[in-house]
């Protein structure tokens, strides 16, 4: 097993999960369980392919992916913060809207419900081959990765700085921790929640753009295949902390890439394909257990002999 190729595969598989996880994390800190990440990713992937096909250049495609995801996130904000819909119900509604809406456009406008595959599609910037050869093992693993992989890696410290080192981040966290206390401190709760959803949309848009623009250059219905929900699991696993969430995402990416390599051996495919999900269950169990241990009251001994 080649270490560099494994690392490259881990990076590639972790990136959409990491971005989805950060998208879910930023809303979790504002006390919103964002199940709509999946739908925002799907809509962004479609926008990237559709606009890339129409305009023939990469940057409009990339930007439109972000814009579409942010617009969807603000639709969710409107439904929940203005009209007081339940976050989970409205979030699932956004997912259905994205899945049905993309299929509808494929059928009515492109006349091909099976998918959208432009004959030529503009390439997004990838790290050129050979440019990082001075860095052993890690360098070659990064070569050929898209610019979105780098953005995802930079997004981890950025979200950390935003949440913990800026006044706006502190207000956002306060709005999530205790609404009444935050309101009495003069923080506009709805604005903070809408902001967290907008950032979430931006990150989910990046995730969708990565799926569509990195290697595939086409759109298929349901091509996100649950990555948004795996990201949500990674966030819960990481307890809403940026570093732990990133670590959890890489863990899932690692098990995915490892599973791909294990398929060469005569292990039943069902077991190998189970790996990332088994990792998720073990991880979540461990996270709950840690919280339980931390919150357990000191034991009072009856019999101090």
């Amino acid at each position: 097993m080649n270490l560099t190729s494994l690392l490259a595969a881990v990076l590639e598989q972790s990136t959409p999960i990491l971005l989805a996880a950060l998208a879910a994390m930023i809303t979790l800190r504002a006390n919103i369980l964002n199940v709509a990440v999946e739908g925002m990713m799907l809509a962004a992937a479609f926008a990237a392919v559709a606009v890339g096909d129409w305009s023939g250049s990469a940057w409009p495609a990339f930007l439109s992916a972000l814009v579409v995801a942010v617009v969807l996130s603000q639709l969710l904000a409107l439904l929940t913060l203005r009209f007081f819909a339940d976050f989970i119900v409205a979030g699932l509604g956004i997912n259905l809207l994205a899945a049905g809406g993309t299929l509808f456009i494929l059928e009515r406008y492109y006349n091909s419900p099976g998918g959208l595959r432009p004959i030529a599609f503009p390439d997004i910037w990838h790290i050129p081959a050979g440019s990082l050869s001075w860095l052993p093992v890690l360098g070659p693993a990064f070569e050929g990765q898209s610019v979105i992989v780098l953005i995802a890696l930079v997004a981890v410290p950025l979200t950390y700085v935003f949440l913990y080192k800026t006044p706006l981040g502190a207000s956002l966290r306060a709005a999530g921790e205790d609404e009444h206390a935050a309101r009495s401190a003069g923080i506009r709760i709805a604005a903070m929640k809408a902001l967290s959803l907008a950032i979430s949309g931006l990150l989910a848009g990046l995730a969708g753009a990565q799926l569509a623009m990195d290697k595939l250059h086409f759109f298929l219905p349901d091509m996100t295949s649950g990555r948004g929900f795996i990201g949500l699991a990674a966030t819960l696993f990481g307890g809403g902390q940026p570093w732990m969430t990133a670590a959890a995402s890489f863990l899932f990416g690692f098990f995915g890439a490892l599973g791909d390599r294990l398929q060469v051996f005569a292990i039943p495919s069902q077991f190998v394909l189970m790996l990332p999900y088994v990792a998720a269950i073990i991880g979540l169990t461990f996270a709950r257990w840690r919280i339980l241990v931390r919150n357990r009251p000191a034991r009072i001994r009856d019999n101090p002999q």
Partner: protein
Amino acid sequence: MTRSIMKSMAYAAALGLGLMAGPTFAADFSAVYVMSDNLGDMGFNDNAATGFARAEKEGVKTRLLQASPTDPQLWRQNLEAVSNSGDWSVVFTGPNMHDNLADVAPQHPDQKYVFFDDELKQPNVLSVKYAQNEGSYLAGALAAIAATDKKDFPLTSGDPKIAVVAGMDLPVIQDFILGFKQGAKTVVPDIDVQVIFIGNFNDAQKAYDLTKTAIQNGANVVFNVAGPAGLGILKGAADSKKYAIGVDSDQSGLHPDNVIASVIKQIGNSIYDSIKQIQDGKAEFGKLKVYGLANEGVGLVYNDKLVPADIKAKVDAAKAKVVSGEIKVDTAFK
């Protein structure tokens, strides 16, 4: 949801018109296809549609009732509506419809049904299946030749290594895989065939990753058995500068330098053939008809740019042996 309601209404309206116009075409032959999916997949359904289009040119009245793949109730409604109307000489239906047809067909003993890509034992149902293992057998033979023949296939390493990337571990997929392995082994007995599963039929990114992994492990030719996600397999092989074999429709055009051939089920041919046989009164209802290499129900279409004539001759020799019955291709259906 509203979309499917609109569709049902449109169909109801269409059927209503059909009823009013009934007497004018009752004497003619007519065929309706109750679908569990939409057209436009560049594969199975579009292929089926070509068969109806051919029949229509010869004066058969045809209608294709599309339905959303996520709306099983509509499939059933459409099947019941066309059965109750009694306007159609024959009702075609296909994948995912087994239980529906098993309920509806006995209630309409005078209605004739053709059930393709699956089997149902009823006196008024003609079942049609495809020997995908025979088509894959040829793909395996071609893949083995391409992997070991560096002269004609410059992108290969010459090592006897090939791979199948498949959607899910289902009987019909295993049938593809068994035929592929057997075909490869008849040409190169010690060939290494990696068998890899994606776990579903729409995760193209995972299909892409798995294809790259298979190629890093030495595979020279990757066989796509993954439906829509297969586009990721073809892209992965093209980006790695290796060869791929497509499935369901002629996929050579997608990556003309990398896709050497495609295994196709000639669903359209079989449908046209069935309509002709029913018109002539030759169809054997209550029985199963298998379309394989011998009656052009499955086949391998080459990318003429990449596969030279002498290689085609070798593969066609293997085909002749299957057609003559000299070789029996392994199957997952016993």
